[in-house]
C-alpha cells in the first residue's frame, strides 16, 4: 500500500517541473544595467570603480558617473601616472570606452603600459581573521600568556576596504595582453597631431584646451554617450583620462610663471569639461602638476571646479624618505575634496592622514599609524628631530644614553 502510494505520488511529482509559474514582476526597466557599474548605497548614484579598491572606498564606494576626479601629481609623476593607468585598465576589463589625452608621451605608449589584470576570482585582500573557534596548539606562538582574553580579537585593520568587492586587481609587473587591450575601443588625443586652432571661439581658453574639449564633445555625441539620446541600444560608459593638464606642453604658462597670463584657461576648460560630464555617461580623471603651480588661489579654484580631488605626495627625494615613521610607505595621500551629489553633506573619510604603498598586486591606501615609542632616544627627542636623530645618534648617541636617566 505504501509502495503504491509512493509510486502514485512519484509521477505526479515528476510532472511538476521547476519554474512553471507565469508570474513576472511588472517593473519598467528604468535602472541602467551597464557592466562595471553599481549603485551607490549612500546616495543612489551610479558608480564606477577607479581601478584601485582603496581609492574607491575613500571616494564613497567609487567614482560617480558624470564627475571629474582631480589628481594632484607627485613630484616625479610616477604614482599619479600609475593611478591613471589603473583607471584605464579597469575600463578595458569592464569593457568601457576609453579616451586618453596626453602631451608628453603618445597615448599609445601609455596604453601599452597598462597593468595586467588578475582575473581569477580569488579575493586578494584577505578578510579580517575570523575568531578562531578551536584553541589548537598551533596558536601557541600567538598565544598570549597574560592578555589571553584578547588573543582572538582581530588586529587593527589598516587597509581601507569595503566588504563587497567592486573593481579588479592588477599586477603591475606585467603589462596587459594586447588581445585584451585591443578589444577595448580607445580614442586618442595627442596634441602635436592636432593642428592648433587660433582660439577664435573661446577667447579665454587656449587653442589646445578648446581643441581637446571639442574632441571630447565629438566623441560623446558621435558614440551616443550623451544622456539626451534615446535609450535604444545598450549603454556604455566613457572613461576619459587627461594627463598633465596645465603643463607647458599644453601651451599653458600656469606652471611656469608666478603670475600666469593664461590664468583662466585651465579653469575655463574644467568648467566646460564638467558641464560635458554632467550631461553624459562618462567619467573623467585629470592629473595636474600642482607642485609647480605657485598660486594657491588658482589651485583652490581648480580644486573646486573638479568634484573629487586627491593629492599625492611621494617621499622620494624629500627628507621623509629616511624617516622611520614612513618607512613602510611610498607617500602620503591627501583627500582635498569629496563632492556632495544630490545630498546635503558629503561623506568625508574619517581618517585624515593616509599613506599609500604601491605593491606588485595592489595599490594600498592605509591609515597612517605611528609606531609606539619603544626606544629610549625617541622619548627624549622631539618628533621633528627624529629624522636627524638617526644621523646624530652615532655621533652623540652614547652620550645621550648615559644622560638619559
Amino acid at each position, binding site marked *: 500500500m505504501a509502495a503504491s502510494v509512493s509510486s502514485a505520488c512519484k509521477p505526479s511529482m515528476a510532472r511538476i517541473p521547476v519554474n512553471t509559474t507565469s508570474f513576472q514582476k511588472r517593473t519598467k526597466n528604468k535602472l541602467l544595467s551597464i557592466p562595471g557599474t553599481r549603485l551607490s548605497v549612500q546616495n543612489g548614484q551610479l558608480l564606477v570603480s577607479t581601478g584601485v579598491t582603496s581609492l574607491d572606498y575613500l571616494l564613497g564606494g567609487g567614482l560617480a558617473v558624470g564627475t571629474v576626479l582631480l589628481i594632484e601629481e607627485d613630484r616625479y609623476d610616477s604614482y599619479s601616472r600609475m593611478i591613471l593607468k589603473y583607471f584605464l585598465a579597469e575600463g578595458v576589463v569592464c569593457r568601457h570606452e576609453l579616451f586618453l589625452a596626453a602631451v608628453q608621451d603618445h597615448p599609445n605608449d601609455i596604453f601599452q603600459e597598462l597593468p595586467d589584470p588578475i582575473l581569477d576570482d580569488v579575493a586578494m585582500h584577505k578578510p579580517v581573521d575570523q575568531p578562531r573557534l578551536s584553541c589548537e596548539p598551533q596558536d601557541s606562538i600567538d598565544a598570549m600568556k597574560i592578555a589571553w*582574553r584578547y588573543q*582572538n580579537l582581530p588586529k587593527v585593520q589598516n587597509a581601507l576596504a569595503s566588504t563587497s568587492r567592486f573593481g579588479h586587481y592588477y599586477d603591475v609587473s606585467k603589462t596587459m595582453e594586447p588581445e585584451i587591450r585591443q578589444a577595448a575601443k580607445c580614442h586618442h588625443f595627442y596634441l602635436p597631431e592636432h593642428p592648433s586652432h587660433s582660439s577664435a571661439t573661446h577667447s579665454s581658453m587656449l587653442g589646445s584646451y578648446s581643441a581637446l574639449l571639442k574632441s571630447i564633445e565629438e566623441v560623446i555625441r558621435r558614440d551616443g554617450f550623451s544622456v539626451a539620446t534615446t535609450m535604444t541600444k545598450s549603454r556604455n560608459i566613457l572613461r576619459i583620462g587627461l594627463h598633465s593638464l596645465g603643463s*607647458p*606642453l599644453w601651451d599653458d604658462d600656469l*606652471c611656469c610663471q608666478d603670475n600666469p597670463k593664461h590664468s583662466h584657461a585651465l579653469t575655463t576648460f574644467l568648467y566646460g569639461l564638467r558641464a560635458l560630464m554632467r550631461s553624459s555617461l562618462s567619467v573623467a580623471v585629470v592629473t595636474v602638476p600642482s607642485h*609647480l603651480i605657485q598660486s594657491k588661489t588658482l589651485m583652490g579654484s581648480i580644486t573646486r571646479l573638479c568634484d573629487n580631488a586627491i593629492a599625492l605626495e611621494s617621499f622620494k627625494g624629500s627628507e621623509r624618505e629616511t624617516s622611520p615613521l614612513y618607512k613602510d610607505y611610498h607617500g602620503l595621500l591627501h583627500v582635498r575634496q569629496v563632492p556632495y551629489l544630490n545630498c546635503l553633506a558629503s561623506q568625508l573619510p574619517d581618517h585624515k592622514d593616509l599613506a599609500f604603498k604601491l605593491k606588485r598586486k595592489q595599490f594600498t591606501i592605509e591609515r597612517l599609524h605611528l609606531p609606539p615609542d619603544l626606544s629610549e632616544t625617541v622619548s627624549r627627542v622631539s618628533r621633528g628631530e627624529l629624522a636627524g636623530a638617526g644621523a646624530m645618534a652615532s655621533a652623540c648617541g652614547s652620550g645621550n*644614553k648615559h644622560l638619559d636617566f
Partner: protein
Amino acid sequence: MLTSFCILSIMLNDLLQGTDAGGFFIIQDSCRYSARRLLWSFIKAALNREEVVHVLSFEVSEDELKNGLKGSPIERLRFHDAYSDPLGWSGRGAFTVDRFCAESVTALVEPSSPGRRAVLVIDSLSWILRHSGPAAVCRAVRQLRNDGSVVIVGLLHRDLHPRGTVGSLCRSAASVVAVDAGPRGAEAKVTKRLKSGKVLQDEEVFSVDDDLTVVGRSEPSRVRPREPEMDPTAHLTFNLRLSDLEREAKEKLALPFVFTKEKKAALLHTGSGRIVYEPDANDDYDQEDPDDDLDV
C-alpha cells in the same frame, strides 16, 4: 672617470660615460657654483668616446671653449656660434635664439653624423628659456626625444627662472644633475627617471680637476663602522639582570588569572552558557581544621 683614489658614485659615472642614454638631461647650477667645468668634462668624455659633439653656445665664445678643452680630441667637436649675436641684431650670427626648434636643430646636427646618434650640448638653456619661453623648449625637446636622433645635454641656471619653469623643464628631462656648493665642496644630486616610473637618486661630493676629470670624494660618515650597541643594563648601581635560577623561578610563578585550557576556551567563546568551575585552593575546606594551622 675612475681615478686612483676615489670612485664616483655609480649614477654620475654612468652619465659621464654615456652608458645610460636618456634623451635629454639637464645640469642645473646656481650662482654659488658654476657647473660649466662639469659640462666641459661631459664634452671631453663624449669626445673620448669618439662621438660627434655639437656645442650650441650662447654664453661662451669658441676660443674660450677650445681653451678649456685643451688636450682632448677637438676634431670631432662642432661649434655652433650663438655667442656673437644670439638675438640676431646685427644679422651676422650663425644661430639665434628664436631658431631653436626641433627642425632646425635636426638640420644642424644631421649632416655631420648621418645615421648615428649625435650629442648636442647647449650652453645654456637659460638663454633660450628667457627668450622663447618654456613651452617652445619643451616642445622642441619632446620632438627631438621622440625622433631619437640626438642626445641633448643642457646647462640650466636655476636662479634665473621662476621655480615653476625650472620644475616643468626638469619634468621633461630623463636625468637631472643639480649642482650646488655645499660645506664639503661641490655637491651633485643626480635624479634619474626610468621609463617604468621608478626614480633613482644619488648625492655626491665632487670636484673637477684641471684636466677636466671629475673626482668624487667619498663621504667619511658612510664608511664608518657602526658602533656596537650599548647594553643598557650595564654600569648601573643596581642589578637589572637575571641569573638562570632567577629566570626559572620567574617562569614557574603561578599568575593569578591563569586558567586551564578548557576554562580559557570556554571564556573565549561566550554564549555557550556552560559554567566551568575549577575548584580553588579555598574550596578545600576542612571541617576539623578550619584555619588550616594544625600541624598534624
